[in-house]
């Protein structure tokens, strides 16, 4: 039986070569780049649980082999199993969804642990409303529905007749806000109606197919509803600026697809064509610009940033809100920080409140539970004296990774 030992030696040797080759390739590639092998960093410093976790994750993140293989593995998982990895859920008819958004709708909130910071959006919203009211400013709140809430039928066949899903936690918050007399732009109702009775842009969905954010059609509907809310009760006067729109089509790969960091999938899926409408001043022909001394301050996350501050520009919610109300607004945007970061930014820059009558505060629905910084109450300072306008003063942006 000369064959047996060959098998055993072959298996053993192949296994050793396989597991030893990866660190060797890594070390050689680092030495070729004139770097010290990262693996040796474990010997620098006293090991602690935190330093060991960081070392381990850095080592894997820097791995040449893992880095090369990971996109192709994800591609295979997507192509063979329709799997979108840790962050994306692949829906029907080419739709992509953000998993935390889906989990917000399906999962129970974890029970609070003793010693945890209270994570109570209602308490914070009411405090913010009162802080602003003390300065003579009215708060209007606009929770932006998760894409999964508006297009559940694109996620699963079971939701084919569900129309719009408002999960328990969102429903409770909306009800509590209503009971507390807070002005709310209820986009769940607005989008639900738009889905049932499509208007002029009926051919377009309200959200992008590959992205977490709304489409130009969706933001136009939202802007119209928000403007109606602002003007309807005399919170602000209709403006007189004549705005017009121009088609500004763009093509982009959606953020959900990009989150996978797998170029082969991006190539397979291809970019999505988006029919943006750029807002411009009818009198000067210039693209829309914020005005620092406008009556309305809009606070929000990447739902305000999309099409406005990135391609094509002046085609986002803020521009369309200005168009709908007939006058410019001021905006403060914090990617991924609609719940708290943007209020902290406002706290640091009180001049944004100068001359304001209304603050329209938008945050994505999933932030009700998953807000990165929770829902702490942030002090609102007195608005400073009017300052001469600075370049781009009316528009601030803090970009953070991931979806809003």
């Amino acid at each position, binding site marked *: 039986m000369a064959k047996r030992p060959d098998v055993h030696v072959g*298996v053993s040797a192949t296994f050793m070569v396989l597991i030893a080759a990866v660190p060797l390739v890594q070390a050689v590639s680092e030495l070729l780049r004139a770097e010290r092998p990262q693996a040796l960093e474990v010997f620098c410093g006293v090991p602690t649980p935190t330093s060991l976790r960081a070392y381990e994750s850095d080592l894997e993140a820097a791995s040449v082999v893992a880095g090369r293989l990971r996109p192709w593995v994800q591609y295979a998982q997507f192509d063979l199993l329709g799997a979108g990895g840790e962050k994306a859920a692949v829906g029907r008819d080419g739709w992509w969804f953000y998993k935390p958004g889906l989990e917000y709708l399906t999962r*129970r909130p974890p029970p609070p642990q003793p010693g945890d910071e209270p994570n109570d959006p209602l308490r914070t919203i009411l405090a913010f409303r009162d802080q602003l009211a003390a300065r003579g400013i009215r708060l209007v709140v606009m929770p932006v529905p998760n894409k999964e809430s508006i297009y559940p039928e694109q996620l699963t066949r079971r939701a084919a007749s569900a129309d719009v899903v408002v999960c328990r936690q969102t429903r409770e918050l909306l009800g509590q806000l209503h009971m507390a007399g807070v002005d709310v732009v209820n986009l769940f109702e607005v989008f639900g109606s738009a889905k049932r009775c499509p208007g002029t842009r009926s051919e377009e969905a309200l959200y992008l197919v590959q992205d977490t954010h709304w489409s130009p059609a969706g933001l136009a509907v939202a802007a119209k509803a928000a403007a109606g809310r602002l003007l309807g009760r005399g919170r602000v006067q209709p403006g007189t600026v004549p705005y017009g729109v121009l088609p500004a089509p763009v093509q982009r790969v959606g953020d959900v697809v990009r989150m996978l960091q797998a170029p082969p999938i991006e190539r397979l899926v291809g970019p999505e064509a988006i029919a943006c409408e750029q807002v411009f001043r009818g009198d000067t022909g210039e693209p829309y610009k914020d005005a620092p001394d406008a009556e309305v301050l809009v606070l929000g996350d990447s739902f305000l940033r999309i099409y406005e501050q990135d391609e094509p520009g002046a085609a986002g919610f803020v521009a369309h809100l200005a168009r709908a109300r007939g006058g410019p607004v001021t905006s403060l945007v914090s990617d991924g920080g609609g719940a708290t970061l943007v209020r902290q930014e406002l706290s640091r820059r009180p001049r944004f409140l100068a001359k304001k009558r209304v603050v329209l505060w938008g945050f994505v629905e999933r932030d009700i539970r998953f807000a990165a910084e929770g829902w702490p109450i942030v002090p609102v300072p007195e608005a400073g004296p009017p300052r001469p306008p600075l370049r781009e003063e009316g528009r601030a942006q803090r970009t953070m990774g991931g979806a809003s």
Partner: protein
Amino acid sequence: MVFTTYIFVFYFLPTVLLVYYTLPFLGRQLRLSEDRLSLVRNAFLVVVSYVFYGWWNPWFVLLMLAVTVVNYVCGRILGASQGNARRRFWAVTVAIVLSLGALGFFKYFMFLEVNASRVLEWMGADSLDVLKILLPIGISFYTFHALSYSIDVYRGTAPPVRSFIDFACYIALFPQLVAGPIIRYNTVAEQLVRRSHTWERFASGVALFALGFGKKVLLANPLGGVADAAFGAQDLAASDAWFGVAAYAFQIYFDFSGYSDMAIGLGRMIGFEFMKNFNSPYLAESITDFWRRWHISLSTFLRDYLYIPLGGNRKGPWRTYVNLALVMVLGGLWHGANWTFVAWGAYHGGLLALERGLGKRSLYHRLPRPLRVASTFVLVLFSWVLFRSTDLHEALGYLGVMFGAGAAGGGAVLLPAELYTPGAVAAMVACAILVFRPLQAYQWAETVTWPKAVAAGATFCVALMAMFAQSFNPFLYFQF
């Protein structure tokens, strides 16, 4: 450190194996005897095992070292006190009390505090400030290893260990340190002194490690997401609840048996032979049969070190039923300080007692075999609901949903997007095919042929690539 991580597979393991197999060459240069070389190898295994364990939290190493020292010293006293029964009794008592004391403090003190606090609140008194205690990983396993040594030496079924290094190696040996199988001292006492290293054993270890790796990464991890979605759901339909608990049944089996396969495989790579821990448990025809097939190292440990000393079946039928129930409740509590585990143990203990009363037969023993297997599987599914839930309220709610008591509104309409993904369905089908086949990885990998080598190699490569695309997924039994 976790077996299915980049650092373990590509840094820790190759380094350990290369140095371990280089030591004999070094030993020859230094003209070391076989005994000395075995000690040097064991010392090396102790060092790397402490690194492996300390990777989670370096401070936990001190606790393991303390348990090791206490049981080693007691073992020495036991060995030196032949004929002095009183001294031997006290030595083993000290070992048991101190080892279980450490386990009790780190694992159950907070549980007792929380419950005492609730009772005080119920009585209208002020609640207690609960002291938060971090649970050292694997403490239940290495405490049982240590106890097994002291009790085996006390009973005379194993000799006292020849050196502290050998004993520390037995307690800390990294393959089985944090999640078993629970190795009894008398089964490895000789291997600690002398063990054979052959290509055949190494290759068999590689094959078993590869299969275990595949079980964990390719089957258990994807199904873990399904179970998490079902057990964490706000609203759930009955069909989703059944699917979710079935996913958890497969997850826990492939996670734990995958770990056991990897542990046994790694043991073989360094010359050890550990006991088999699973034997097609979901093919069991009764709950009694299930416990002969599931976590065999724990069930036999509880039988030999708890059930038999309690009197076993020697004191009449009622005492047998009480003993069975008590052992299973304690076995449940061993898994974790939570009433859900107590209920899980009591449920199994009750069923075992019932079957014992029927002559070790199930209530449904007259059914055809496939239906007996299916009935046992369903009974086990109910127990997994208790095991997986975070508290009894959640468990009862989940069981209620399984029988149609749930409201399928709200988020329930979206749950299929998390539960019935093509990947999850494929994993469920693969699991269902694998668990209902009698062939187990343990037997499969005993002899390695070229076709098996190709199959194991392909599984390992695919699992490695899948690992690159997965986030951190520790083994379920790490928490116990």
